[in-house]
């Protein structure tokens, strides 16, 4: 064999063994189907290593929109779900696709917009009323339009406001929260955002917080285990271990202070043990 070919072969063998080293025994892998906001906020980067150290399991967090995160779990492509769309979650639980829904934490949404506030919504206590004013004024509003938890809440608020939003003042970005904020800032438009992402971007943007504090704007995250009946390869024990971890007192303590260092305020409020009615 010529030397070049010998080197290439040795290289190939070594790299293949390296690539397959990642594929451990299935039972030690936990696939977490979750939303972009948990990853973009940096919370997962803190919690996942903690869990891995405690449990000896490897977590594969797959961050997608809430709609996709739930759909993946329903197909048995994940073992545990951490999302924030209570109405949709309850549907999956009722169908038996997801089990044991437990509240983990909440943060809140805010409506942000240009300093000039053309629709005069600043200080409006009710989010739906603020949206009605935006529609009445025909002021620009940027929507995620991606079936994310944020988008699902936004749709519920439009329904409550009795408005069917439409172009040209209604703009659908089809992108994540950060990109959507960027578009809203550029177009001097309103948008609905979670506070964490807004804080991360606020130093580069002119958008101001205009509406906050409405109970309808609470963003509640729940953890659910995937029903092993959804697929032959669901790691039910691993999924339950991660769900239990999210509710453990030590984890909840980490969540309580997360974000203080970077933003001067916590991003999430831990609520293990609470029910939807308690909020």
């Amino acid at each position: 064999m010529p030397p070049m070919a010998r080197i290439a072969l040795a290289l190939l063998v070594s790299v293949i063994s390296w690539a397959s080293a990642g594929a451990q025994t299935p039972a030690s892998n936990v696939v977490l189907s979750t939303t972009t906001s948990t990853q973009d906020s940096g919370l997962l980067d803190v919690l996942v290593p903690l869990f891995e150290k405690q449990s000896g399991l490897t977590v594969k967090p797959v961050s997608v929109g809430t709609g996709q995160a739930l759909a993946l779990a329903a197909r048995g492509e994940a073992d545990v779900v951490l999302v924030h769309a209570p109405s949709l979650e309850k549907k999956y639980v009722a169908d038996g696709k997801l089990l044991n829904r437990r509240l983990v934490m909440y943060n809140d949404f805010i409506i942000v917009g240009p300093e000039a506030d053309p629709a005069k919504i600043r200080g409006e206590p009710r989010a739906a009323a603020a949206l009605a004013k935006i529609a009445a004024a025909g002021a620009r509003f940027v929507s995620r339009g991606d079936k994310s938890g944020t988008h699902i809440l936004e749709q519920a608020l439009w329904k409550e406001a009795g408005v069917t939003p439409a172009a040209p003042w209604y703009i659908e970005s089809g992108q994540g929260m950060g990109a959507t904020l960027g578009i809203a800032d550029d177009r001097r438009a309103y948008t609905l955002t979670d506070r964490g992402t807004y804080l991360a971007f606020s130093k580069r943007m002119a958008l101001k917080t205009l509406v906050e504090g409405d109970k309808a704007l609470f963003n509640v995250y729940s953890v659910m285990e995937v029903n092993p009946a959804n697929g032959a390869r669901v790691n039910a024990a691993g999924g339950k271990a991660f769900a239990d971890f999210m509710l453990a007192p030590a984890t909840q303590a980490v969540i309580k202070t997360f974000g203080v260092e970077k933003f001067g305020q916590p991003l999430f409020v831990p609520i293990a043990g609470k029910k939807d009615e308690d909020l």
Partner: protein
Amino acid sequence: MDLLWAGLREALRLLATGDPEVVTILLLSLQVSGLATLISLIVGVPAGAALALMRFPGRTLVVSAVNAGMGLPPVVVGLFVTLLLWRSGPLGAWEILYTPAAIVVAQALIAAPIVMGITLAAVQNVPEKFRLQLLGLGASRLQMVHVVLREARLPMLAAVMAGFGGIISEIGASMMVGGNIKGQTRTLTTAMVLETGKGNFEIAIALSLLLLVLVFGVNWALTAVQQRRVW
């Protein structure tokens, strides 16, 4: 402008301090795309050479398919590889979705038609008379192919550059089949999208500078070999 300078400073700082996270991401990108390029060469060079030398009915159709495949959208490859590797998919038993191996598979599929297409063009550029002459001088068919490939080796370095350059900077497939998992499947491009999404523009700029330097470095090395004609 201030943001660009801040990005440049951050890039230099990350490189100078050997930031462990950046080093992990850099090494993973290099290993994954390097291995995928290697696989695409092993598959693409013989296939491209065979296609250049063989004549059969429907050949134009196959060549057109290869040429079209050179522009195969990574996100399409990503989608289909994901569906195949899903737990409920036909290759679900492999359990390699969201691992570096899955990215290697997807990237090799993206690079293979590029390598094939360029090899095809390079081998076809070797004059047919030269091939006939070799056979006339008593070379076996295999020996002839060997000599023709040697003749075409310099243009074929372009195949390595185009293949590697295409997949190291590819994002759609890496994101879908890798999942951008920290420390496991986070590559330069997926990390860049994540940091931009987080609002960490300095780090995103730093990563993009690293990627540009990396792509330039690899191409520079290969071009040096090509232009000096050392082998």
